[in-house]
């Protein structure tokens, strides 16, 4: 079984986009630059480029999602691809056999790309290992492992506001343990040369060996927010209240909810980010979420440009080929 980094083809081109881990800085910058070129398409009268005309992209969602699926769909449509959305209740396909059977059925319909979201870590790698050679796989979130397009769109948003990664401090706050978003952000930010990446949360929600990913750990939020340029808040799932990870939402908000008072410890021009959907009053106060430092809605529109960039790159089409 090939277990190496299967994201690249023999020429070193990105064939799948499964995880930011293992991608070099130049590749990430290339994605960000390409996304920049797509960023204004939404403002044009005709919001389309013909890069992926004739391609069929399947959104294969084994886990429900509105935001991610919609932005992938919009990204594909703006690239002129045909899009098929398939939502599958996880319970029906929790067995690998039926997962593979389903993939082979879709392959038989001559699709070009699968955009996959699945509740199991490693699902996108698994699918990429078993698809026909002409199909590319984009990971739209696998278990706790990775959500690489989210990591890239957050890096994109940060670059637009802060420019040089080498001069900024970023704090990621909340449930790091269960967060694929946090893992992808950490890989993106460290690879792009961010001066310091911090994670903040209670010990129950921070994996013991997280330091090995190149971050600093804080348990006290005000200390952790001191002098940071970017604050990324993570969504706290309701189910974390069971299993003895936290006593209550209320107590979590007291220690780790982002309020204006706590935000004041960060730099005065710090931006506040959140991958959504937000739990107001649990991890973030409405005054902050809707306040002047929040760039949360910008993240959503940036998501479309970044996903267009990744999709066109993986299918080997660059805007220079556009005049056709």
């Amino acid at each position, binding site marked *: 079984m090939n*277990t*190496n980094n*299967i994201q690249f083809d023999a020429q070193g081109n990105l064939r799948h986009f499964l995880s930011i881990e293992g991608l070099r800085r130049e590749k990430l910058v290339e994605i960000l630059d390409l996304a920049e070129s797509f960023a204004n398409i939404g403002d044009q009268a005709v919001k389309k480029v013909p890069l992926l005309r004739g391609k069929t992209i399947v959104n294969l969602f084994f886990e429900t999602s509105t935001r991610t699926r919609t932005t992938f769909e919009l990204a594909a449509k703006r690239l002129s691809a045909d899009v098929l959305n398939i939502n599958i209740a996880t319970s029906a396909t929790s067995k690998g*056999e039926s997962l593979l059977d389903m993939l082979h059925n879709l392959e038989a319909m001559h699709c070009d790309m699968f955009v996959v979201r699945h509740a*199991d870590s490693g699902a996108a790698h*698994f699918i990429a290992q078993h698809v026909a050679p002409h199909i590319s796989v984009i990971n739209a979130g696998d278990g706790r492992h990775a959500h690489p397009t989210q990591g890239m769109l957050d890096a994109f948003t940060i670059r637009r506001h802060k420019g040089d990664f080498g001069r900024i401090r970023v704090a990621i706050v909340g449930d790091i343990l269960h967060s694929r978003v946090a*893992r992808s952000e950490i890989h993106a930010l460290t690879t792009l040369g961010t001066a310091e990446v911090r994670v903040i949360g209670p010990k129950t929600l921070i*994996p013991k*060996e997280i330091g*090995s990913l190149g971050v600093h750990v804080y348990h006290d939020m005000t200390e952790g927010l001191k002098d940071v340029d970017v604050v990324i808040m993570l969504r706290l799932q309701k189910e974390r209240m069971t299993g003895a990870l936290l006593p209550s939402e209320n107590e979590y908000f007291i220690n780790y909810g982002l309020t204006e008072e706590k935000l004041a410890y960060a730099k005065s021009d710090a931006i506040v980010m959140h991958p959504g959907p937000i739990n107001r009053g649990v991890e973030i106060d409405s005054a902050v979420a809707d306040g002047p430092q929040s760039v949360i809605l910008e993240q959503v529109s940036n998501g479309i440009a970044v996903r267009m960039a990744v999709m066109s790159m993986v299918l080997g089409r660059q805007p220079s080929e556009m005049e056709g």
Partner: protein
Amino acid sequence: MNIEIRNGRVIDPANNLDMVTTLFISNGRIAALGQAPAGFKADQTIDATHRLVVPGLVDLQARMREPGLEHKGTIASETRAAAAGGITTLCCPPDTDPVLDTESVAEQMRQRAHSAGFARVIPIGALTAGLKGEQLAEMQTLKDAGCVAMSNARQPILNTLVLRRALEYASTLGLTVVLHPEDPYLASNGCIHEGMVSTRLGLPGIPECAEVIAISRDLRLIEQTGVRAHFATLSSARAVEMVAEARARGVPVTADVSMQQLFLTEMDVNYFNSLCHVRPPFRTQRDREGIRAAVADGVIGAICSDHQPHDVDAKLAPFAATEPGSSGLETLLPLALRLTAEKVLSLSQAIACVTCEPARIFGIDAGTLSVGARADLCIVDPQARWTVSEKTLISRGKNSPFLGWELHGKATHTLLEGRIVHESCA
């Protein structure tokens, strides 16, 4: 039938023997070494020049998958693979379906093995009825049916009082109890060592303390009840240290480790390699070194295959959804030799860990080439190079984490009670 095995390097650690000599087999037993017994006339002569002649391997943990999961393996298919790997005695945990908690299941397994004829299968009986951890199994009956030890396999006994009584009762009958220490709450839904790799891959981890805490509890009860206990397939350096410390105080406890644990670590999971999904999980480099050292200084007496053959589909899913366990029968012998090449063990030590030491732990009459002993032995070409692959493995389970490794050493002949059960020209 008389067999003469000429000019092999005979290694029999139980007798401190390591010399080039000729071995004579008569009526299924070792008749003599060096000089032929009076009137011996060989029906067959095997030239073992440049080969090793060692006792047939004794494996303390191997699952045949029969009864219950015959699509993964049968006693016939897996004993055939064992013979090819030089193993002549296999001890099988009781987590079959139905559970090995009645004499009929024990009897059935022995019968099947006997009619297949490739290797001796010795059942390990259930410690509690149905492995449920509630009621004691009929241990006397199971002992009489040939069970060599009692175990709850990988099913935890949550109720400490039940465990205490099970150990007391087993101790009363003079039975050895096999324990798989893992705190089920700490292990929870983990599928990989909790550490760097689990953090990277976002997979739920099994912390080292799941083993350490379970083993501390078990050691106290062993000490209190005086039962002969054996810890199976340990994975952490800390747990091994605790066994060493208990043994130093005279607690009657032994331990084994799977051969895989002596070579692989969490890093081998790499990008979700489901062939490295095993329980207990592969841990850190430090753990691997600690376990190797414990084997070298005798704290861990035996190395087992922890053979768990799977069908292809069992490993074809996202990592956490795959079934744990690896196919290990055919890599046990070559990897034992590799431990010698890597200077972890002397050749004689390495052979002892897979022959006389495991036999001694369970009190099995096997694992030596003493004159008069049953002629279970294997002839090994230590130079034979082969690549582990789905094609070269004979076991129905192709789920070896060593696929693609080139190993040295292959059994050219395996004899069970003086009968050739495996022969290859390798």
